[in-house]
């Protein structure tokens, strides 16, 4: 069992689809989980129909959604890094790594979960994942937490192989759906399409939500 888990993602909903179930399992087992979220997803595009947000009110809405998602997932320690959506790859890499390193030093996690740099599609995902790895590598190997990465680029399995960990989260399926729902501004559209499928137990969707996959970080991979 882990001592403390640190999840690190740049956007408030990044944890919802692929990590929330695992997090819920940890917090239910009494493992503290810290979430270091990089931005407030300020550049999200979905303003709703009817509108529920403007470009200027979206960050505050997404912050509240994130807090609600954390409540659902049992995360009591949410750290907001205050970066701006879509700009992480243009920041000084060491500065971003410094922010994350301070959190690592503070919570001393036994496991870190982040995006696999180079295999996470969104430039913020890749840059933030890279900063997390950079921060973790500052620790001597015997003190370094395990690092599980999320990857979903088209080519990820060609380079990384199949996922090292396939975690069955079907025991917390409904709670995971609640966490996804909490990010309403981002997930309302998908959820609308899912409800009929879930009612019919659509096997692909149930499998996709019920299994969370991770790659153990094994060093930089040349593409």
């Amino acid at each position: 069992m882990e001592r403390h888990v640190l999840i690190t993602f740049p956007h408030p909903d990044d944890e919802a689809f692929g990590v929330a179930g695992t997090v819920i399992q940890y917090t239910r087992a009494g493992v503290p989980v810290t979430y270091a979220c990089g931005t407030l997803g300020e550049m999200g595009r979905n303003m709703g129909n009817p509108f529920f947000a403007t470009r200027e009110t979206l960050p505050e809405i997404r912050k509240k959604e994130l807090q609600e998602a954390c409540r659902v997932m049992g995360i009591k320690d949410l750290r907001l890094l205050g970066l701006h959506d879509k700009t992480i790859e243009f920041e000084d890499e060491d500065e971003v790594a410094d922010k994350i390193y301070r959190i690592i030093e503070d919570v001393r996690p036994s496991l870190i979960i982040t995006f696999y740099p180079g295999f996470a599609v969104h430039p913020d995902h890749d840059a933030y994942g890279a900063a997390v790895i950079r921060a973790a590598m500052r620790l001597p190997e015997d003190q370094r937490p395990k690092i599980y990465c999320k990857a979903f680029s088209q080519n990820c399995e060609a380079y990384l192989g199949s996922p090292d960990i396939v975690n069955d989260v079907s025991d917390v399926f409904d709670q995971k759906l609640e966490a996804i729902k909490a990010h309403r501004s981002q997930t309302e559209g998908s959820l609308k399409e899912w409800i009929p499928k879930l009612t019919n137990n659509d096997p692909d969707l149930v499998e996709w939500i019920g299994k969370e996959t991770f790659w153990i970080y094994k060093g930089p991979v040349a593409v």
Partner: protein
Amino acid sequence: MNIVTGCGNLEAIRKEDVQKVLDDFAGQELYIHLETTNGVYTGFRRPDQLSVGAFIRNGKIRYSRGKITGNGPYRVGLKMESGWVYAEGLTDWEVDDKGRLLLAGHHKDGKLAIALELSKEPF
């Protein structure tokens, strides 16, 4: 679950009202937010397409004439001392509680495609 909303008075553009605000803002030092995007996942979902986008936040501008044109969706042009600001595809607007002019173009599903915002204070 708490449902949080914050859409203020965002509503379909009324051209004459927007024009009045553009006139009010003319000749002053302003901060601009200008943004357009077709979505960062466009190229991921459709490999034959490019993800394109650009944004400027808190650029300082001053324009001598600002004009809204079209019959909806609308276009706005701001003529500056030595250049232009241009935005196309604007559908909705509000002046928010901080007195900022927020103009945006949304697809039918509510996805933002363009935003042009002007403020006397930094965003």
